[in-house]
């Protein structure tokens, strides 16, 4: 009302100009305000570097991050308790199991939406994908079996028995799976033939196996046991434990670097990433990360390790050369498994970004269409309002 009083005190000549001027300024302000969130929204899904996917166990969602900018790009809702996460070798798909449910969700990494949901049985835990990307193996904890998913059809083509399976490692040749079987009193690594889905053997354990991974040459399998503060090194040729490497309390996920010259493991008690020398079977360095570190993913160039900190609700980015944390990224609640897409997708991602920019930056994408629609709608309404105002004025 205050501005109305001022309005009437303006001389009549100016007043005539002021009405449309205020109208136009108001319209411009509205258009500007409506448009401002758009650039942020349209820029977000396009990653500058390879994308990382982290399961947020207590949020029932998967966070999508850009490893180039260390930022969260999106959050994808999934069924309760996201547990295992793997990416296809071509980086086009990410598979997420939900242990509070019975499903494996398939995420299209181009759109970051769920494109398929696969029923695998109650409480699916860890996932593993064959090197050729044709099969995803799901450790179906509640069903005491491993489900084999054909990634071409997203159908479970068969199962193999394994008691309370938790995590799975596949040999680099893609022929054999080692399954951490957590049935109390019968804890073991169950060995499956991937083609025939038959149990080939078993390595009996006195403690409960947790997470496991093969060396790139397939000559070592590192795994961890609940209640043993050492990484167990198995020789798959003899299926015996060759040695144990003492590390920080409660080690969980072990992971080799692509060249096999180093391996890593998270120690959940002290909250650290331990760096190991697999040739000498020694601990070479410790890097402090967040609380209750859970899982590790490597950037495609192998220079950085991304570590999820379940109790700190964050991800620590560790530079493996300098052995320092270069970034700590806040994510949602209880981040557990994490995967970083392979380099193929990083390239595809840049191509997509370039293509979108090259076509004028406005023609593609849903967000730019929304902007154009908004602008058009505003212009039409503004025009109609002006015509109405004009007619009303003429009548008087």
């Amino acid at each position, binding site marked *: 009302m205050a501005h109305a009083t001022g309005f009437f005190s303006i001389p009549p000549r100016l007043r005539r100009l002021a009405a449309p001027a205020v109208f136009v300024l108001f319209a411009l302000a509205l258009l500007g305000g*409506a448009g401002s969130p758009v650039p942020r929204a349209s820029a977000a899904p396009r990653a500058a570097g390879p994308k990382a996917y982290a399961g947020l166990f207590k949020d029932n969602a998967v966070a999508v991050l850009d490893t180039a900018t260390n930022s969260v790009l999106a959050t994808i809702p999934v069924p309760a308790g996201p547990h295992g996460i793997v990416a296809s070798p071509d980086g086009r798909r990410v598979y997420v199991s939900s242990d509070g449910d019975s499903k494996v969700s398939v995420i299209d990494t181009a759109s970051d939406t769920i494109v398929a949901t696969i029923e695998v049985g109650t409480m699916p835990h860890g996932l593993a994908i064959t090197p050729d990307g044709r099969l995803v193996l799901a450790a179906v904890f509640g069903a005491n079996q491993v489900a084999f998913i054909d990634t071409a059809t997203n159908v479970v083509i068969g199962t193999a028995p394994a008691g309370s399976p938790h995590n799975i490692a596949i040999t680099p040749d893609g022929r054999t799976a080692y399954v951490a079987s957590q049935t109390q009193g019968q804890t073991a690594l169950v060995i499956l033939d991937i083609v025939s889905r038959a149990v080939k053997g078993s390595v009996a354990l006195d403690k409960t196996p947790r997470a496991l991974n093969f060396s790139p040459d397939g000559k070592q399998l590192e795994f961890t046991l609940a209640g043993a503060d050492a990484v167990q090194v198995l020789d798959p040729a003899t299926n015996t434990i060759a040695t144990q490497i003492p590390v920080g309390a409660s080690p969980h996920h072990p992971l080799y670097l692509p060249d096999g010259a180093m391996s890593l493991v998270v120690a959940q008690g002290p909250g650290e990433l331990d760096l190991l020398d697999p040739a000498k079977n020694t601990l070479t360095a410790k890097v402090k990360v967040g609380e209750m570190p859970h899982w590790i993913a490597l950037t495609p160039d192998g220079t950085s390790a991304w570590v999820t900190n*379940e109790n700190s609700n964050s991800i620590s980015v560790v530079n493996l050369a300098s052995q320092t944390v270069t970034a700590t990224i806040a994510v949602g609640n209880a981040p557990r498994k994490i995967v970083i897409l392979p380099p193929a997708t990083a390239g595809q991602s840049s191509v997509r970004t370039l293509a979108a920019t090259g076509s004028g930056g406005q023609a593609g994408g*849903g967000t730019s269409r929304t902007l154009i629609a908004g602008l058009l709608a505003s212009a039409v309404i503004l025009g109609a309002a002006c015509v109405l105002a004009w007619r009303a004025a003429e009548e008087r």
Partner: protein
Amino acid sequence: MRRTTVSHAPLRSRPSPLSRSWRGARAEATRPLLLAAGMALLVAGAACSGGNKGYSARTAPPAAAATPPAAVQQAASPASAPAVAATPFAAGSSTQAASPSAGAATAPALAATPAAPLPVGIAGFAFTPATLHVPVGGSVVWTNNDAVTHTVTPDAGGIDAHELAPGAGFTQTFNTAGTFSYHCAIHPFMKGSIVVG
């Protein structure tokens, strides 16, 4: 910036005919029109910004965390405690639990004093003992002696869910007979049960 330029073009062409047409119009007559046009633009603006679901989803507040409620130390029911403490079973139980309690020495003398909670240790990714017998009205204290967080989560009911950081514990009283199974939600191979009665 490009966007602003685009929106300027059609808008700038309007002021001159507009100002001519409005010549002679009374200000009182323009006010309701301005109001109506303003509201229409607001609707258009809202429609425009409302399309950015991706952005809002990205910044969506985290879903309610499944954090268990704060630990509630439940005292033994005064009504049932004297009767229970008088039984030989309860006396044996209180002896078993005597070591951690400084005031345990007075417990046998006072029948009305609730029995000390029976301990379940969590260590090496296991509940010890895995099965614990308590009398009706008896209490159990869980203590996490591991280096990692564990939970005490009921399979069905009868036990309050708790997330226990290393060193943390909680006590619960059981006033109903029955077998109550529980597990660690983080490490579901960890299982235990309390047999009450």
